């Protein structure tokens, strides 16, 4: 609950300029699901079914983590370059 409230407060202050990078960042953050996926895949008593599901989940969330952060950075680099040039 507190986090949701905090999220509200934080996002409201983000300018529309950065909405797209913000979105890909939160995307990457939501890939925190990887934690759950790891717990399932790595568990000792995991059956084949859970292991397969967990494995897929780790793959999927890793895609999100990696591409999410990289692309956010790529976008921000473009904003940054401009700012530096102007100074």
């Amino acid at each position: 609950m507190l986090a949701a409230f905090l999220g509200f407060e934080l996002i409201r202050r983000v300018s529309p300029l950065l909405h797209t990078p913000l979105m890909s960042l939160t995307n990457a953050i939501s890939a925190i699901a990887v934690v759950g996926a790891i717990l399932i895949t790595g568990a000792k008593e995991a059956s084949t079914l859970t292991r397969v599901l967990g494995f897929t989940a780790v793959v999927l969330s890793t895609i999100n983590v990696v591409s999410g952060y990289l692309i956010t950075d790529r976008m921000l680099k473009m904003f940054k370059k401009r700012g530096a040039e102007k100074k």
Partner: protein
Amino acid sequence: MMQSIFPVLYLFAAASFILAIKWMSSPTTARRGVIIGEIGMLLAVVGTLLRAEVVTYQWIFIAFLVGSAIGVPIAYYMPMTAVPQRTAFSHACGALAAALIGTAEYYRQMPHGVVMIALIVEMLLGFLTFTASMMAFGKLQETLPQRPITFKGQNFVNLGILALAIIIGVALILSPERTWLFPIFAVLSLVFGVLLIIPIGGADMPTVIALLNSYAGLSASAMGFAFDNKLLIVAGALDGSSGFILAVIMCKAMNRSFTNVLFGAFGTIQTTAKQTTERPVRSATAEEAAEILDSARKVVIIPGYGMAVAQAQHKLRELHDILTKRGIEVSFAIHPVAGRMPGHMNVLLAEADVPYDRLIEMDDINPEFPRTDVALVIGANDVVNPAARFEKDSPIAGMPILNVYEAQTVMVIKRSMNPGFAGIDNDLYYLDKTLMLFGDAKCFVSGIVKELNAVAAGS
């Protein structure tokens, strides 16, 4: 002793996510935000790997490798215009991951009580967000028709399916042993995701993407409750609320309510809003457009989805540069819902090196239009349609627009007279001061640039 460091690690990770989002609020600190976000993720992953419950590593590492092998190329080779698709795709990935984890956990433990409630919420959101995002992806990629698809009793069917899914979900919560119910539950959630998106047209995509972002986050948050993992709850809630707030901003920018976007697709109105008569428009060539621009003192460029499709942003930058060099004040007016996702235009223009202080938001630019000599509309339509302001029965009535019609001269680059995604005719095009520039946005802008260069060389 080992076990006690995990809450600390997770706490740090959660704190870094919050900082990451906080720093996103300004372009100068935003990259720092990404880095702290990465650190947070690293802490979370390492922390989890070290946990005593995790004993088998080989599959996890193989999965990391496979995921990175797919993720890295996506990040580096994807053109910036495809950002909305990627975002949708990544929502799909995240949601499916959450749903699969939920499924695995269900079959592993058959949990009862609170945990089962959390799992059901997680899976419901996960499955429906997965298919919904895939549909959104298809629509953005234009492999699926962008027009809303509607049928009679659609809302009834949709709500019915959702209700059924929820009922089965509740039944599963009450007695998780009824495994035969589970596949039905999953399929219903998946189907609802598809149905949710088909009636939504291209113009509403920004809202929907933001909303799906929110669902994916909430799903992760529900997973946090299921696993009793505070980090998941916090990160998921952050994501959920950020998506939600973005969706609300988008809705406000269109003066529509959530329910309206989700259930009241423009589709129903489209048939009635059909063009009745062919009205004359004035068109112009690139030379004429260049001349007008050259004699202007203040130019406002209004980009829209058409600019993204034509990849015209680099040419626009050239136009911006050459006009600025000739002492003309150039700014870009960005409508909150221009394009296919929140902030879409800003990213594209930033890619083309347009200084971000030239990108001006709707509320700040609107008072400027009466003093604007030329408003150049590129691939935008509904966001400049005066009908939103003056015609009460228009489907987009009340939607805040850019007051382009107040400019001295309006030039519109457009491929044809086809109405925009909302399917509404635009009176702006028939004004006496409006010049229609028919053609591909990129070609046309480069035509204008060429002309201006010639003028510059001559003088």
